[in-house]
């Protein structure tokens, strides 16, 4: 039986929740399992083609492990602004990093939205980036809300990196910054 507390970290609440993050979840949110792991593997392989490579590098996924040890993954999405006639009609827009928007310009759906603003053990980002001209999978544990004040140990970082590597069935590099 897995001791989730020691292997991945104690469940902890988010240190803050943005007003727009309550009662909303990313449209793309899925459980990381065999099927979604295969989808990520396929995505990484498709993204390696010249046609998709640059676009894939603009986006990233966010992930969080809940109290039961389930890992939830989604594209990092932004919330469209509400209209005068009510809530936004269009949801599920991936946040495009880098150019042209500054992070402050968008209401992103952060890690708390993966776990209904509840507790998570460990959380971070998953993304494709170039390493020696090859597109590789990276993860970090850079959730400001879950992993800043109670930082994961090196063993916990390695455990979660290994978990992603097993599920995606590709090399996954831990981005330690």
């Amino acid at each position, binding site marked *: 039986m897995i001791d989730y507390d020691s292997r991945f970290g104690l469940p902890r609440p988010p240190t803050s929740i*943005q007003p727009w993050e309550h009662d909303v979840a990313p449209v793309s949110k899925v459980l990381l399992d065999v099927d979604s792991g295969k989808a990520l593997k396929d995505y990484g392989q498709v993204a390696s083609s010249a046609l998709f490579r640059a676009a894939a*590098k603009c986006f*990233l996924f966010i992930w969080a492990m809940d109290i039961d040890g389930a890992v939830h993954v989604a594209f990092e999405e932004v919330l469209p602004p509400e209209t005068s006639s009510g809530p936004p009609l269009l949801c599920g827009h991936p946040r495009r*990093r*880098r*150019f*042209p*928007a*500054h*992070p*402050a*310009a968008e*209401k992103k759906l952060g890690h708390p939205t993966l776990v209904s603003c509840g507790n998570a053990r460990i959380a971070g980002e998953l*993304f494709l*980036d*170039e*390493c020696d001209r090859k597109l590789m999978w*990276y993860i970090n544990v*850079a*959730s*400001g*809300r879950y992993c*800043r004040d109670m930082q994961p140990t090196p063993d916990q970082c390695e455990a979660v990196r290994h978990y992603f590597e097993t599920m995606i069935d590709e090399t996954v590099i831990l*981005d330690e*910054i």
Partner: protein
Amino acid sequence: MNMNTQMSARHMNDLACLFGSFKPSERNLLLGAATTAPSKFVHALEAFLGEWASAGWIEEYNIERVGKWIAKNCPADMTIRAKTLAETKLVANDPADGLADSVYTLTYKSLLAGLSFPKS
């Protein structure tokens, strides 16, 4: 604005955007700038922080990571320049002067917190 100035401004804007994304390959580009064009790097950092400082919300950890990375990886002089930038901003022009923990103040305090990490 002449062509060189336009190119320079565009390059600086590109660099500022990289702080917001901050993937490993982008940090390599930033490190190159910190080493070969330190003034451009500092101006880009100032532009990146300025956007946060005037925003309605803040990701403190996003900024703190930038400071930590500068302290650990950039030439030592860059840590001093970034620290001076943050300290100068903190003593001047806070639009919410007198209010604790304004977004403006948190922006520059977050950078200073990151810069306090020891060099690896």
